[in-house]
């Protein structure tokens, strides 16, 4: 088993009765790049939330690095999350902290050694091309730059898996390409990337595996796939 992500018959019902995922079976290998596409309400965000254990499946098993996280204890969740990088559409940066501090914060709260923190923060800021902005505050940055800071933060603990929920959703096309370039670099270092997206141009141009979700089911799983919707 060298699957980084393995889902077996995963179902998710929200407390209000909405069935967001209906029997997902899936295997993602180390180093893959996967797009999750599908119309609004298809269950993409729910799918992403299952991977970093923001939600528990109602039924089924989810193996991340061969460990079933469906029956992970609450107190183990923080340690599990340190191995998953997460990026959101809205960046989720702390406005009162500088670029450097925002990234360092992620390492401080897991009690990393200060000397390691400094080295690692500079490394990831270099990777996303923001080393020269480390003293800026989020509101002094463009949307694309803010998203790069959030990506830097998500990978600073060297997670084997990076998941992103519409990371280019708030960005203009040109900036989106820059973000994709950052993801490419991270993926080339061996990190598995799973990205939910509505961005047709990107999916069609930078070909990767495409998973199409509709009504909580995988309706298409295609290597080097295309976007396949007309929105």
């Amino acid at each position, binding site marked *: 088993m060298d699957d980084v992500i393995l889902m077996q018959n995963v179902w998710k019902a929200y407390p209000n009765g909405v069935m967001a995922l209906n029997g997902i079976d899936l295997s993602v290998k180390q180093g893959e790049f996967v797009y999750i596409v599908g119309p609004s309400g298809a269950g993409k965000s729910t799918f992403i939330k299952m991977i*970093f*254990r923001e939600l528990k499946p109602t039924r089924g098993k989810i193996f991340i690095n061969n460990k079933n996280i469906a029956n992970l204890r*609450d*107190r183990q*969740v*923080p*340690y*599990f*999350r*340190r191995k998953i990088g*997460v990026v959101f559409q809205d960046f*989720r940066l*702390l406005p009162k902290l500088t670029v450097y501090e925002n990234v360092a*914060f*992620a390492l*401080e*709260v*897991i*009690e*990393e*050694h*200060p000397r*390691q923190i400094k080295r*690692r923060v500079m490394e990831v800021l270099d990777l996303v091309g923001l080393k020269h902005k480390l003293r800026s505050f989020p509101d002094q940055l463009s949307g694309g730059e803010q998203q790069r800071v959030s990506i830097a*933060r*998500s990978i600073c*603990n*060297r997670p*084997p898996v990076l998941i992103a929920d519409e990371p280019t959703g708030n960005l203009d096309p040109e900036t989106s390409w820059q973000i994709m370039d950052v993801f490419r670099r991270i993926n080339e270092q061996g990190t598995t990337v799973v990205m939910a997206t509505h961005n047709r141009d990107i999916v069609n141009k930078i070909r990767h595996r495409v998973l199409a979700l509709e009504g909580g089911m995988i309706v298409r799983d295609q290597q080097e796939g295309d976007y396949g919707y007309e929105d």
Partner: protein
Amino acid sequence: MCAISRKVTTAMKIRTLRRHVNESFKSLGRNGWMTFASVSAVTVSLVLVGLFLMVMFNLNKIAGDIESDVEVRVYLDQSMTQAQQDALQRDLKEVKNVQSVRFQSKKEGLDSLMESLGNDRQSFSDLKKENPLPNAFILKTNKPEQTIAVAKAVKSLPDVTDVRYGKGTVEKLFRFINIARNVGIILIIGLLFTSVFLIANTIKLTIVARRREIEIMKLVGATNAFVRWPYFIEGLVMGVLGSIIPVVLVMVVYRFAYYNLGGNLQQMFIRLIPYHIMTTNLSLLLVGIGGLIGVWGSMSSVRKFLKI
């Protein structure tokens, strides 16, 4: 694959502790007015708790002293013969609810009187020349409230003329203590809950102001304990700050009470709890209650925000 080394330690690292303390003082400052209000509420509650306990502890001690002193005294006529005394002693032992009968000679009676006079005994020293006290039998009853019945029964025995007992002062004192205790406890519980509530609210403000921060902390894998620590410290600090004035006040008030009233009370054979014992115990208790209130308030706020 993870190049960053990770030591697993259970003890908190010093720099982590320093961080938690910094964070908590930062938000104590930021919510200055709420902090002030919470600390004041704790102060008011603890002042009342302190004064109340000061009185209650002493009343309890006095009641205890008196209770162990509740006894029926049968004074013997000087003219009684040894045979009459022995007969009386046998009769007294037969009376219902009498636990023990002890003979107290006139000399023993005087000694114990001198003892209870303490520092004032000089002024009574001429009593020693001619002891006016009679011999007596001292009866203990099974329970303090049987005193009156026993005294009556004893009085009806032959050869008995002079019977003395506490005449219900003990009962009155106990009844007063009970009422005072109940009223005080209700009042104080109300005040303590108000303090807990105010502290919980202050902490809630802090947490709401930092919701985003907490969200990100949880996202990147901070443990609940790590998230919780600053709020724990914040609550503890507010509670302990709130106990400072009450502790000082208790010390001052008790110093006054002990050294000014204490002397007068002693002439009535009442002894207060010694100054150092009282203030040490009460101070620790107040600081403890303060800390508990603070921690309780803050943790009750944090719990809701930490659901995974």
